């Protein structure tokens, strides 16, 4: 499988804190890559860099568009915005921050379509209804405001609103964080089936080894801004090499 996204020697400081220290990685098409580590390890910063929401102070992010690889820096902010509006997606941990609660569910799903130029009301509405069904929300709720939705429904709505433009690459930041365990399982199942069906490439940040094991093909373990271990998910989790990974696995996988 060909490379879709590549980070080359990314370093970044916040004030005097070195948040990322010479991080490199590649993501292939249709591949699911999990970034795991405890809070403060730099995983969310890395996700923000990969998704073009933050520009690294040094190093480059390359996106393989067709044949050519171009760095986000060279593409420029406007081209990156265009990518972010359709071909890339971002699922935030808190759907309330990502969705507009004063806009109907249909409007929220249609937003990315309209941002990328869709101008047919009935088509947008039909597409929104289809996606509401795909994330298992009753189509009757199409015109309802999301503030009446439960936490799990909001997260499913955010997933629909992200996937509606048929992206090839989706970034997810702890998409099941902050949800009840029973709700988490349902969201994970939904993500897994949608991602496989649509052939998405995904970079998912999680502190939950269980989530990584369920979803990811490959795994990156981060600590203090560095990648300490990477490899196929099963390999890393069944036979962790780095003491930090061993600690992570041991503390989370007793069963």
């Amino acid at each position, binding site marked *: 499988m060909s490379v879709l996204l590549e980070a080359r020697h990314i370093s970044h400081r916040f004030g005097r804190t070195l948040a990322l220290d010479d991080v490199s990685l590649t993501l292939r098409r249709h591949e699911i890559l999990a970034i795991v580590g405890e809070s403060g390890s730099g995983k969310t910063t890395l996700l923000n860099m990969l998704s073009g929401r933050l520009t690294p102070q040094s190093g480059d992010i390359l996106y393989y568009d067709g044949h050519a690889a171009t760095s986000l820096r060279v593409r420029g902010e*406007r081209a990156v*915005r265009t990518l972010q509006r359709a071909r890339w997606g971002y699922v935030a941990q808190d759907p309330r921050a990502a969705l507009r609660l004063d806009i109907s569910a249909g409007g929220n799903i249609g*937003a990315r379509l309209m941002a990328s130029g869709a*101008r047919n*009301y009935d088509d947008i509405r039909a597409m929104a209804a289809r996606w509401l069904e795909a994330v298992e929300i009753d189509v009757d709720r199409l015109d309802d405001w999301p503030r009446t939705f439960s936490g799990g429904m909001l997260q499913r709505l955010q997933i629909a609103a992200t996937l509606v433009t048929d992206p090839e690459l989706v970034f997810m930041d702890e998409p099941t964080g902050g949800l009840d365990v029973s709700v988490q399982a349902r969201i994970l199942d939904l993500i897994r089936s949608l991602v496989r069906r649509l052939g998405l490439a995904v970079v998912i940040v999680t502190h939950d080894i269980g989530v990584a094991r369920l979803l990811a093909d490959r795994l990156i373990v981060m600590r203090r801004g560095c990648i300490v271990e990477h490899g196929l998910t099963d390999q890393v989790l069944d036979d962790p090499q780095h003491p930090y990974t061993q600690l992570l696995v041991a503390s989370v996988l007793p069963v």
Partner: protein
Amino acid sequence: MQGYNFAYLDETTKRMIRRAILKAVAIPGHQVPFASREMPLPYGWGTGGIQLTASLIGADDVLKVIDQGADDTTNAISIRSFFARTAGVRTTTHTDAATLIQTRHRIPEIPLRDDQIIVYQVPMPEPLYRLEPSRAVSRRMHAMADYGPMHVKLYEDITRFGRVAVSYDHPVVVNRRYLMSPSPIPAFDNPKLHRMPALQLFGAGREKRIYAVPPHTDVVSLDFEDRPFNPIRAPHRCALCGAEHSYLDEMVIDDRGGRMFACSDTDYCASYQAREA
């Protein structure tokens, strides 16, 4: 007028404003910041339009000022007399006799020509302000052409009310690039913006912005393909001149629901009456 320069503003300020106008014409629909001056009329009374007019007007110009389409509304009278006093120029109520037209909230009914300039008074130049109050953020949205949220607003209107609930200041896209506020003109007037032969200038004094639509430029009102932009007017004839397609004011004539409808463009109404007579 003694003690003041021709048309009130000093020549340095006029040059600064004309530079901003040139930039605005070069980037149709883009809001150009300018060092708006305090004027002897309050902010909100047309200080942006007045500064544009003051920096453009020459001794040979013939000025028309309208507010709500009418030459006889108090603020139109006040602004017209301001220029009659400070510049001594000729003024007119006839649209076709004017070289420079300053307006608030309307575009005259008769088509303007390429030897005319129309100056709009603009209260809120930022078309995105209801969606994004921070001008630092909305400027960025313009730079990135991030106009999706505006369409989402129209989507919501249709979903909730069955139609777009914007009846004035309906946002437009200029030259297929910038989203622009046409100023609070009724949506009925929006089609007149499109490929108008006259130069259209927009001035917002308090918000310190100037923007422009050069002659013959594409101006498209935001809509959906299957819900096309469809402005409405009161479905009546003018009670004074009988015109059937002009924009009408509604006047309450009694306390039992009695209404009279008459042209908002008083010059159009008067000349229509003269023609019919």
